[in-house]
């Protein structure tokens, strides 16, 4: 039974290609994953390299239960987490208390400002650098939920399965992530005088 299952799975996913072709096939996907979660292109490249070398060591364990790309991203995921922890990015708190944003009467402590013409922002390269810095400040789990949902455009249910959380938890994580991102962009972009 177990054997039949693995045979079926093997027919569904391609074999692991030769390591010499990994960079050309999967390099950009791995790099994008790392760059979205780490701070700089340099760190992203280093982490991709660590993951590729670890994958080389571990390639005997590839059983064809997932797509080679997914298998490589899984290895990269661990390397990225290691690096985030070294850099002092703590796993928690997952969720901010709403009092961080709203006072006792339910009013915004610092009402959102700016955003009058968001379309113009997208044309500025420096803006995307600020976006990246703000993403890098999100706590781990919140960041992962927000990146999977927004950057990767995955449906909420898939993100819940991947992170093993309920839909309610996901909504809270995404809400706090959006509050943080909006606030961070305001502080670092609009109030920095770039917005005009």
């Amino acid at each position, binding site marked *: 039974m177990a054997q039949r299952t693995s045979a079926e799975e093997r027919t569904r996913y391609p074999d692991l290609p030769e*390591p*010499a072709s*990994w*960079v*050309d096939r999967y*390099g*950009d996907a791995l*790099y*994008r994953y790392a*760059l*979205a979660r780490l701070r700089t*292109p340099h760190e992203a*490249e280093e982490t*991709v*390299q660590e993951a*590729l*070398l670890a994958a*080389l060591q571990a390639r005997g364990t590839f059983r064809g239960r997932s797509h080679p790309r997914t298998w490589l991203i899984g290895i990269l995921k661990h390397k990225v987490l290691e690096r985030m922890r070294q850099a002092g990015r703590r796993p928690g708190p997952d969720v901010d208390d*709403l009092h961080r*944003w*709203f006072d006792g*009467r*339910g*009013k*915004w402590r610092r*009402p*959102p*400002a*700016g*955003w009058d013409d*968001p379309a113009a922002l*997208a044309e500025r390269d420096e803006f*995307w650098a600020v*976006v*990246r810095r703000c*993403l890098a400040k999100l706590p781990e789990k919140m960041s992962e939920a927000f990146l999977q*949902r*927004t*950057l990767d*455009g995955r449906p*909420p249910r898939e993100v819940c399965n991947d992170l093993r959380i309920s*839909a309610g938890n*996901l*909504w809270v994580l*995404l*809400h706090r992530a*959006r*509050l943080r*991102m*909006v606030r961070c*962009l305001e502080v670092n972009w609009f109030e920095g005088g770039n917005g005009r």
Partner: protein
Amino acid sequence: MMLRCPRASELISQGLDRRLWWVERLRLALHLLGCRSCARFGRAARWLHRELPRAEADDRLSPAARERLRRALSDAESRG
């Protein structure tokens, strides 16, 4: 009961991830009529949700980085 800003901002966010009930949509719409702060948050959150994928659209390994990675892999492979 009038919706207040914390719940309104939650509904704005959830509206990007699920279809809101009509009661929720109605209460949110009423709140937004009188609350410019939440309206602004909504504009910002929707914009982020829609445009963020562009943040990485151009992210590719540079040719130099690609070469470095290839070399690191082939070195490690030849060392066994």
